[in-house]
């Protein structure tokens, strides 16, 4: 099977512009081979290169005394007491889930788990943020049920508890659901391992499952809109095997602790290509890989397919040259294959051979760093500005109690117990506050402190006013974490937007990021990394702008965590902060007036900071029996949740 000739159509099919192709030819001094074209297509896709978002991401605050590792590695890391540290990240698996919800979501969970344990951290919590179209449509129900079951089956089998997340429904997600998975892991700070290849002569090995044709074009596929045409070009669906993942997790942690290896990385989007190229570039070294040595699952795979395959549950390891036998022994203990496929070189080249012939030879650093960066135009869609200025014509007059019942009955506000009861939330016997409260809280065995975890995003606010919406997203996550008594420490983010090549979408992205940056600075919660997912569009249009934030908080005493449900009769009820006439983007207008518009609440970051301080101090002094954030749905819904949220008894309220 000879490789196809490089033609403009083939280049275009690989989502590379003519300028990008010209830059490649100039870099190589020749026409690229077919595998090389595949490599550039994957590494220079939006998903891997962040070429439209990098300039904006640079405006985020990323430093602070608590930051051990900021953006640039597989996961961000924050410092905890007693020499401990927490590694965490959130990633999207939107397009694969739209094609096959069960496997798309399951492999999303698998990938984010690997990003965390590749840092040397033991995963201790999973969260997921999901968005679907309205549930009165059969396809949306199918996607919703499949995604929840996929995440549950995977996380439950690997034995990592799900401690939180969120689910929301809006017409904007009908053709393009959002599936964002977050993982949190703990490690001793001294055991942190970075994914930078080094040491000339050190050996590259693949560990875990064999390579098949799963997800080929996965990376570039994620960077293009879902069209009817993409159904035809559907890549082989990636299938996850959580059982192999559990073995891979234990083997990887054992390898990292064993000192036999110098670097390790998950083979995620763009598989072997991205992992090997990124590790080489970070370490400033070259690598040489013999593709014929890569263990494959299907006969007759070509170099192109082996390089780009996104088969799951595979890691790339750089072992010390004299420790290959020991590395293979550890893998064998966990019934895993470990196959040497190449070595680290000092010529800075990224080289691959196939049956003795060189098929790829690209300057390593340029491959990863010379991808062009774009500065697209940003202009607000006038229709949104008009919507922001308008109010509902005449909200049907609802008696307060009827309005509250209507809100509690709406899918976005209603209890998500049906969802999170399918996830094991108590495995690892460390769950202090399970899902359903403001934030999940876990303890670290034999330590006093606790970790609070939460994901949040109010996409209605962001759609109507991206800057205020960005601020509100960080503020809400911080409030939720602080309600449990935990001090907000830092965030990861998953920025889900439409096509950046559209001015209206890039305006939403730029402004939302500006809001997130301001809020993170004000609340002292630096950005430690994350993921950008553009091109979330479908024939019905772009999804609502959904910059999801994953927040980590620290509780000095886990046994002083504050739950959100009412505890016993006679307790006094306070409302902190003042209530302003701000109904823009509210669930009330949406449910009772069928209107999503108006000016969303403006966030006063100083007030938010003082509120967080009050909540944390109050909890430390054991003043609060429970605390709950007032968010989507307003005060009435918040009080109902506090009364009904208790595990056993239904308590009521007497309020003025």
């Amino acid at each position, binding site marked *: 099977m000879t490789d196809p000739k490089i033609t403009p159509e083939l280049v275009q099919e690989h989502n590379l512009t003519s300028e990008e192709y010209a830059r490649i030819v100039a870099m190589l001094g020749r026409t690229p081979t077919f595998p090389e074209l595949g490599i550039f297509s994957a590494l220079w896709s939006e998903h891997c290169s962040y070429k439209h978002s990098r300039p904006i991401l640079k405006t985020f605050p990323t430093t602070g005394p608590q930051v051990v590792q900021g953006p640039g590695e597989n996961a961000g890391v924050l410092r905890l007491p007693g020499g401990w540290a927490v590694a965490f990240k959130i990633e999207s698996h939107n397009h694969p889930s739209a094609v096959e919800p069960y496997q798309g979501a399951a492999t999303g969970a698998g990938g984010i788990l690997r990003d965390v344990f590749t840092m040397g951290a033991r995963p201790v919590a999973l969260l997921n943020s999901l968005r679907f179209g309205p549930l009165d449509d059969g396809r949306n129900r199918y996607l919703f049920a499949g995604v929840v*079951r996929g995440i*549950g*089956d995977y996380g*439950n*089998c*690997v*034995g990592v508890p799900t401690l939180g997340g969120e689910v929301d429904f809006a017409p904007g997600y009908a053709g393009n659901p959002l599936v964002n998975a977050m993982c949190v892991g703990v490690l001793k700070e001294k055991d942190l391992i970075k994914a930078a290849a080094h040491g000339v002569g050190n050996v590259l090995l693949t560990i875990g499952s064999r390579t098949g044709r799963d997800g080929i074009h996965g990376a570039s596929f994620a960077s293009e809109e879902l069209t009817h045409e993409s159904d035809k070009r559907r890549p082989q669906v990636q299938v996850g*095997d*959580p*059982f*192999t993942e*559990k*073995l891979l997790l234990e083997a990887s942690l054992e390898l990292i602790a064993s000192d036999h290896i110098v670097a390790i990385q998950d083979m995620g989007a763009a598989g072997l290509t991205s992992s090997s190229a990124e590790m080489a570039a970070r370490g400033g070294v070259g690598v040489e890989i013999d593709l014929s040595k890569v263990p494959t699952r299907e006969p007759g795979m070509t170099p192109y397919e082996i390089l780009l395959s996104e088969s799951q549950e595979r890691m790339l390891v750089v072992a010390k040259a004299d420790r290959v036998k020991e590395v293979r022994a550890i893998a064998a203990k*966990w*019934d895993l294959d470990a196959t040497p496929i190449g070595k680290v070189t000092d010529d800075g080249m990224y080289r691959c051979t196939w049956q003795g012939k060189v098929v790829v030879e690209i300057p390593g650093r340029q491959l990863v760093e010379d991808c062009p960066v774009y500065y697209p135009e940003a202009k607000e869609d006038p229709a949104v500005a008009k919507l922001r200025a308008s109010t509902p014509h005449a909200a049907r007059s609802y008696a307060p109690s009827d309005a509250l019942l209507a809100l509690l009955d709406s899918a976005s506000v209603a209890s998500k117990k049906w969802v*999170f*009861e*399918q*996830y*094991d*939330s*108590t*495995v*690892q*016997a*460390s*769950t*202090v506050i399970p899902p359903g409260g403001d934030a999940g809280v876990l*303890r670290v*065995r*034999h330590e006093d402190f606790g970790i609070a975890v939460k994901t949040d995003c109010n996409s209605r606010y962001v759609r109507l006013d991206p800057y205020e919406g960005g601020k509100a997203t960080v503020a809400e996550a911080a409030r939720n974490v602080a309600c449990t008594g935990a001090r907000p420490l830092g965030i990861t983010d998953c920025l889900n937007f439409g096509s950046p090549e559209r001015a209206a979408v890039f305006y939403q992205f730029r402004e939302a990021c500006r809001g997130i940056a301001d809020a993170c600075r004000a609340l002292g919660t630096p950005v430690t990394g994350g993921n950008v997912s553009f091109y979330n569009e479908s024939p019905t249009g772009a999804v609502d702008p959904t910059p999801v934030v994953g927040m980590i908080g620290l509780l000095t005493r*886990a*046994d002083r965590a504050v739950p959100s449900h009412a505890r016993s009769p006679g307790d006094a009820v306070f409302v902190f902060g003042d209530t302003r006439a701000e109904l823009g983007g509210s669930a009330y207008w949406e449910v009772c007036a069928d209107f999503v518009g108006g000016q969303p609440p403006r966030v006063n970051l100083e007030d938010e900071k003082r509120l967080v301080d009050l909540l944390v101090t109050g909890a430390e002094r054991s003043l609060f029996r429970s605390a709950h954030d007032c968010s989507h749905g307003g005060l009435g819904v918040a009080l109902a949740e506090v009364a009904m949220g208790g*595990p056993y008894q239904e308590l009521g309220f007497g309020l003025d």
Partner: protein
Amino acid sequence: MQRVAVVVFPGSNCDADTLDAARAAGSDAYYVWHKDTDLQRADAVILPGGFSYGDYLRSGAIARFSPVLRAVTAHARAGGAVLGICNGFQILCEAGLLPGALMRNARLKFLSRPVRVRVEATDTPFTASYERGAELTLPIAHGDGRYVADSQTAAELEANGQVVLRYVTENPNGSLHDISGVCNAGRNVVGIMPHPERRNAQVLGGQDGARVFLSLEARNATQHVGDLRAVDGRHLRV
């Protein structure tokens, strides 16, 4: 101090939790890898929860053929204490060490929530320190927890008092006679679906599960039940 062997299969994920719970109750607990055949002089063996072999084919169907099961079977035949928690319970049924089988939950969904169960039998190594009829709140987390047995076996279980735990107020998975845990005729092998190791300290929401592990120590210690509160107190310092 009892020697408690916690067996680890590829895919077990509650082994560390179970080891800690046994140690918190004062036992000398240690891991035994599924490929070993020596239980190292164990007084009791615990098969922890998890997804041994990914639960492929049937939960526990493959794990029961691990080399360690030969030693566990010999230990059980000799009257030694054996506890199977969740996946461990499924493995003991597949291996024929306990009657009946665990099948897909009636509503076909994985279920993770606290449930109420009643202690129906206290003459087993793992329930000796509970009061008979005591109602406990313990977490369950399973997709295949529906206990089934043919009518004759079911009748024997009830007649011989081999039902150890029974769901009360709600049967989460459609189990026969609301059964949540059983023991064998010899009363030394016990299988339960709920996870006591996840509910053995106040910080985790309650300690109803602690006595499953304390029973082992109490049953063999000379103390009478009254001392348990002291043991309970010490145990709380986890």
